[in-house]
């Protein structure tokens, strides 16, 4: 295994701390889990409580690049996947996170923070299949 020159230990640690602060404030002040797939899903569901708060959290997330760009230029986002791959990826992420009841934020941050065994299993599953998928695409299919 070789280490990538793109590794950004300090920015990632600090950015992570901000994400943790956000999730911490949302549970302690609002009593809610900052899980993005759960928030999105309940806005799409027929019946859900607390829609306004959930929508406002997502609105803040949507508006964050605008706030960032007041102080610095936005970092680049490089997406290699083509149209068909993006449709497939989006469908799998939408279905999978709702069946699995969470994603990288809900299980990975909030769930592990409260020492949930379900979340630990979920994180092991999506990281495992993520590692396997990238291995297959990059090293077996050579894309």
């Amino acid at each position, binding site marked *: 295994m070789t280490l*990538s020159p793109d590794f950004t*230990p300090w920015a990632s640690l600090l950015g992570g701390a*901000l994400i943790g602060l956000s999730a911490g404030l949302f549970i302690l002040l609002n009593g809610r889990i900052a899980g993005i797939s759960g928030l999105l899903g309940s806005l*799409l569901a027929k019946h859900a409580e607390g829609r306004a708060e959930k929508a406002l959290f997502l609105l803040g997330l949507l508006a964050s690049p605008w706030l960032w760009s007041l102080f610095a230029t936005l970092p680049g986002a490089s997406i290699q*996947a083509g149209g068909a791959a993006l449709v497939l990826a*989006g469908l799998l992420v939408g279905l*999978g996170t709702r069946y699995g009841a969470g994603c990288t934020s809900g299980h990975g941050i909030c769930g592990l923070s409260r020492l*949930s065994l379900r979340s630990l299993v979920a994180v092991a599953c999506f990281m495992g299949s993520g590692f396997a998928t990238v291995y297959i695409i990059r090293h077996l299919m050579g894309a």
Partner: protein
Amino acid sequence: MRKLTALIAGLLFGLGLYLSGMTNPAKVLGFLDLAGEWDPSLALVMLGALAVSSVFFYVARQRRTALLGAPIKMPTRRTLDRRLVLGSVVFGVGWGIAGLCPGPAVALLLTGQWQVGVFVLAMALGMWLFERIEARRLAKA
């Protein structure tokens, strides 16, 4: 007040994603590519996030109501079932294909790349399908 704190928490979440580099799908895939030149950044994002949020969750778990008065909605399910495992595995496959998960996808949505729009539409369709399938299953039961 709760609406304001929700908005601020969402903004902080997004700023954290941008600062950490996680809004760049190429960087996320660099973490998932163990056999290539590995970029451990995502692990440090998790470490930084857990170090801070676990303190808040520790306090929240001792309480019934949040500081602004609403009940604390801690998840209650404990069972390790097939839905949890299969759903998470399917999510990881989608994550590995594009390098996008729900948080960064929402944070990137208004920055003008068509790819993100396509991904988010398909993700919303997947979530909507889940609601439909679940409603049908519950109606049968």
